């Protein structure tokens, strides 16, 4: 297909042939080709089927704005909705068209086109209302979901993407003419600069068209080459090619995605894309403009393309989509396209302009006349016709006569818009330009500068002034730039939002949004139905809601609406362009924070021992904690937990409690501080003793608990819950710094400095005496709730007599570096006493038997100490403590608050489950009056049945009452409300 090649393009390597497949058929292109340019090289125009009506669609543009040519890349895990106009081909690439079955040529779904009169705007909202509400769930939704969407979800795969943060002074978005000029003026200045370009080539318009003849006396390509070289050599400018800025956040925070495999198959084991997160002081938006299309009957046929895109295919991609195109325009932007074609000895079949002969620029008029190109002024393309591709157009000329022109290609240009998406994302304000018929950047909200056509400045003569004026804040040298161009000296446009249809029928269509199949008729219908606010209209019609966000058409829609409402366009307003500018993958957003790095993992100093001994882990916050230790693969969790808890009750068990939060508190006023932070009073507490303590929020609700060790009135060590460690320390710091700054007190986290072993059970004292023979563990020497420091094997331990299981026990605090060694010594010593390691599940069971609460499980932020029956922990004589005032509020003292109780099934075979509601009556007839719910439940090996803790209304007065627990299968279990303690109520074992 060499006759369609433009060998002059320096960007396509015609000597490097690349083979690929489209819809199973083999094709070839050249290095540098996109899928679109390679297919055009073979004369392929039909690329896909449209979203709603399954109409044949081709390639409409040559860039990121493409609404039609979305394809599925089979060779990349079936990645859907890839723009054929962006994606470069590589050897062996497999591409498929989308939204068609069984084939693109014969698509069953195209029946929708016949039924299209039914599918007008608001079809879904109006149609799927009845006859019964169950129809939506069972029929409509499954069918619509199956039919909806472009492409198919990708197959399961592991994408690799990374994040890279940048901190710079200036970001230049767009490496076209203005971007290069701005960057070159900032070479070797004090600014750190990122120049970001979506293409793999810098140059923009210099590569894409023949608009510019000469820059400073040089040919554009030579000038660009020299400029790029000097930018590359600079010390302060970094260039990111193949990188698309998708998001402009507050404050000057940009997100950009870099494709690491342009023109190559992404490697399975390497980073495919990089998400750049950029913080900058200033942003220069030189990201150019987007050409608009025109609405006329059948303006979606394959073979219709934007004029500037046609030229870009020729200049940038070296492919001539057609050798006899017709050009249809309403503005002065088509000069260079004609010039480009003529340089290749291609004469357009006709030039059709909606403007009068007087309005057409002299240069263009002369060019057309000199080359004998058929010219239609004051004329419009009324319709396009063809079977799956353009075959002819119908033109209404200045006299009103209808002319048919046979052609395979129509280049349309409806004017140009500054690419304002990023500017509006930055909250910059736009202003409607009545002369150029477009919205232009008006007022920046952040440190944003727009340059060139991105700022709505479409005349090359003005570039020098604009640059010098806008870049003077950077104190750069005066820029001198002389440009000779092929364009009209002044951009001119005539209003033409829609050409009335040639032949109207129920099936005739002039599209206003190609991707979402929205027609101008839909717009009119929406207005007539009262959706005259642009944001409402957008949602009712889905206009500009596709992945292209209506880049080539949204202004046309505004124009049509303004005419229908008889308002100015600026009175109609514009919809909001939201990030991202173009779709980006979830893989890029996640970066490396996925799969093995999904969440940071914390491991205790004993972790490796746990692995070696077969522990099954559970995630507690970020900690990996042993859940249980199965003796064999066949031992279930239930069996393991029953065994572990029985062993603790009968001999001894040890838990790795290293995850518990630990805080050292010291200062002249440490005692006063502790009395203020916790509900308990520590004033009369002896040094060397420990106390279970509660911390409340200001609302009086239980926030955390732990054991406080008093070393002296000026020095304490507090433990916290595992999950609450950071919050408790932060809370202490906050109150010390803001509420009680007069107190001299400091606190440091020692959570990670010490591992904690919780050893308990009737044989514990024997084991401890064996490991630490020099310590007297008798009740007299080491009573319950006391602690001692001991030197042991060149390290200092703190041993505390405390227990969370109800058995006599100790907590051993060991510096982390020595922890594993001492843990292993305890294991070895405990063998003869039947010591077992146990996990968190057994810990929960044992503590629940004893009625000990877990913060966050038995409490939920709405439970006071009184609700828990822990009045004894409140220092009644203290003048103040955190949450004190709230404990006397009417709500916190009302008698029917939920209170902690125990629950036992009356039928011991019944199984209680956490979350079950407690009811007074057996009936489940709604509304069911509920007393509360079960917060903890386990099967107790010592009782031989399940039991639970629950919070229920006025629970304590209901102790001894029969109630019911609702089950998930709509039944109830008879239960008895009991005291929340099931084991050793007199604490005989605890203090033994």
């Amino acid at each position, binding site marked *: 297909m060499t006759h369609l090649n433009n060998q002059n393009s320096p960007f396509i390597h015609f000597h490097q042939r690349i083979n690929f497949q489209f819809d199973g058929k083999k094709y070839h292109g050249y290095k540098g080709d996109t899928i679109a340019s390679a297919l055009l090289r073979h004369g392929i125009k039909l690329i896909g089927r449209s979203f709603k009506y399954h109409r044949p669609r081709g390639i409409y543009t040559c860039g990121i704005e493409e609404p039609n040519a979305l394809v599925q890349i089979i060779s990349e895990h079936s990645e859907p909705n890839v723009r054929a106009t962006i994606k470069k081909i590589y050897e062996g690439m497999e591409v498929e068209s989308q939204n068609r079955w069984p084939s693109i040529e014969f698509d069953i779904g195209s029946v929708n086109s016949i039924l299209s009169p039914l599918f007008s705007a608001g079809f879904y909202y109006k149609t799927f209302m009845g006859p019964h509400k169950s129809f939506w769930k069972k029929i409509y939704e499954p069918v619509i979901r199956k039919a909806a969407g472009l492409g198919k979800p990708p197959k399961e795969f592991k994408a690799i993407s*990374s994040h*890279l943060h940048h*901190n710079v002074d200036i970001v230049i978005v767009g490496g076209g003419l203005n971007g290069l000029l701005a960057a070159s003026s900032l070479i070797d200045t004090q600014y750190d600069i990122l120049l970001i370009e979506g293409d793999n080539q810098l140059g923009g318009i210099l590569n894409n068209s023949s608009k510019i003849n000469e820059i400073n006396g040089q040919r554009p390509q030579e000038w660009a080459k020299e400029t790029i070289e000097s930018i590359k050599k600079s010390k302060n400018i970094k260039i990111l090619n193949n990188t698309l800025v998708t998001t402009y956040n507050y404050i000057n925070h940009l997100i950009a995605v870099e494709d690491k495999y342009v023109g190559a198959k992404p490697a399975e084991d390497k980073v495919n894309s990089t998400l750049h997160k950029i913080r900058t002081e200033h942003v220069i938006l030189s990201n150019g403009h987007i050409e608009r299309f025109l609405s006329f009957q059948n303006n979606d046929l394959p073979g219709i393309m934007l004029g500037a895109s046609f030229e870009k295919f020729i200049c940038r991609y070296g492919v001539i989509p057609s050798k006899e195109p017709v050009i249809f325009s309403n503005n002065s932007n088509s000069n260079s396209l004609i010039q480009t074609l003529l340089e290749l000895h291609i004469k357009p079949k006709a030039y059709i302009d909606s403007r009068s002969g007087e309005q057409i620029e002299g240069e263009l008029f002369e060019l057309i006349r000199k080359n004998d190109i058929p010219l239609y002024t004051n004329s419009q393309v009324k319709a396009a016709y063809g079977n799956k591709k353009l075959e002819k157009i119908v033109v209404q000329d200045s006299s009103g006569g209808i002319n048919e022109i046979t052609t395979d290609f129509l280049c349309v240009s409806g004017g140009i818009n500054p690419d304002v998406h990023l500017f509006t994302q930055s909250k910059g304000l736009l202003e409607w330009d009545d002369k150029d018929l477009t919205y232009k950047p008006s007022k920046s909200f952040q440190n944003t500068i727009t340059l060139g056509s991105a700022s709505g400045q479409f005349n090359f003569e003005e570039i020098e002034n604009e640059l010098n004026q806008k870049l003077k804040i950077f104190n750069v040298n005066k820029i001198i730039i002389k440009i000779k161009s092929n364009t009209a000296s002044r951009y001119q446009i005539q209003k033409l939002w829609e050409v009335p249809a040639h032949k109207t029928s129920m099936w005739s269509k002039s599209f206003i949004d190609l991707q979402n199949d929205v027609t101008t008729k839909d717009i009119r219908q929406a207005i007539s139905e009262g959706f005259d606010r642009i944001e409402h209209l957008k949602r009712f019609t889905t206009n500009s809601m596709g992945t292209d966000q209506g880049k080539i058409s949204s202004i046309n829609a505004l124009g049509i609406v303004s005419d229908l409402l008889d308002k100015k366009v600026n009175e109609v307003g514009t919809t909001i362009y939201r990030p991202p500018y173009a779709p980006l993958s979830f893989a890029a957003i996640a970066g490396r924070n996925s799969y093995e790095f999904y969440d940071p*993992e914390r491991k205790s100093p004993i972790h490796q021992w746990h692995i070696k001994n077969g522990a099954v882990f559970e995630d507690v916050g970020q900690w990996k904690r042993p859940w249980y230790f199965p003796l064999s693969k066949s031992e279930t969790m239930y069996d393991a937990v029953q065994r572990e808890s029985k062993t603790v009750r009968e001999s001894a068990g040890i838990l790795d409690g290293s995850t518990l939060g630990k805080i050292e508190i010291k200062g002249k006023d440490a005692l006063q501080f502790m009395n203020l932070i916790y509900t308990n009073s520590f004033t009369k507490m002896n040094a060397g003793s420990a106390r279970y303590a509660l911390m409340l929020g200001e609302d009086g609700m239980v926030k955390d608990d732990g054991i406080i060790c008093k070393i002296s009135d000026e020095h304490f060590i507090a433990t916290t819950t595992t999950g609450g460690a950071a919050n408790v320390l932060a809370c202490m710091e906050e109150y010390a710094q803001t509420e009680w700054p007069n107190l001299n007190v*400091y606190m*440091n986290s020692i959570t*990670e400095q010490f591992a904690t072993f919780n050893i308990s059970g009737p044989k514990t004292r024997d084991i401890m005496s064996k490991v630490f023979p020099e310590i007297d563990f008798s009740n007299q020497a080491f009573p319950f709730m006391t602690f001692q420091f001991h030197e042991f094997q060149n390290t200092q331990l703190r041993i505390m007599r405390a227990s969370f299981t109800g058995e006599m026990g100790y907590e051993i605090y060991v510096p982390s570096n020595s922890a594993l060694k001492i843990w292993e010594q305890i294991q070895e010593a405990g063998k003869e006493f039947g010591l077992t390691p146990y996990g968190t599940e057994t810990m929960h069971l044992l503590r629940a038997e004893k009625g000990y609460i877990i913060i966050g499980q038995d409490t939920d932020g709405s439970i006071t100490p009184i609700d828990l029956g822990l009045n004894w922990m409140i220092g009644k004589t203290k003048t103040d403590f955190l949450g004190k005032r709230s404990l006397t509020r009417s709500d916190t003292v009302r008698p029917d608050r939920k209170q902690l109780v125990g629950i036992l099934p009356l039928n011991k075979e019944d199984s209680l489950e956490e979350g079950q509601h407690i009811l007074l009556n057996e009936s489940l007839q709604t509304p069911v009056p509920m007393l509360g719910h079960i917060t903890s439940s386990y099967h107790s090996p010592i009782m031989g049945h399940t039991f639970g803790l629950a919070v229920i209304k006025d629970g304590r007065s209901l102790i001894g009452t029969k109630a019911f627990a609702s089950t998930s299968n709509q039944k109830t279990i008879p239960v008895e409300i009991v005291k929340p303690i099931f084991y050793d109520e007199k604490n005989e074992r605890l203090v033994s």
Partner: protein
Amino acid sequence: MREVIRSNEVEIKTFTALQVIIRGSGDSKFNNLLNKKLNLLPPSDNLRIVSDDNHILAKLSYDQWNLIFLNKDENLKVQNFCHEINKNSEMLATNISDAQVFFQISGENTYSMMNKLTHFDFREKNFKTMTAAQTLMARIDCNLYKLNTHILVSCNRSFSDYFEDRLIDAVNF
């Protein structure tokens, strides 16, 4: 000191170090006491580091200093130091030598590698040599110490496996 990775112009080594968090007012009494014990005057500017052959002392907040002992075998010295400081009721010295691990990162691509894991601005104009910072790296809390020849990063020991894997990953990808 164990080498974690040396690749792509980045070299990472890991080690544990004796370390003490000192809390206090930073007044002259505080400064004199530390100067007497360490022969080093604590920095008064926030995030500033001072060092000698044996110590790195960084001011990490208005009332907190981190003291790193560069010699490994001074366990007893650290314990004594904490004991002596804690005699003063208006100061707190906490030995956290077992609580953290250190990563020494050097090489031409140090900062570009680290910026895969943190948003932190490492440019000299915003993060001067001999200053410290506390920030998130790979979503965990880290202390950064920018020294003359390399950068030191410390994190809690429970994260050490995770963080080491993230560093290796950042170097390789």
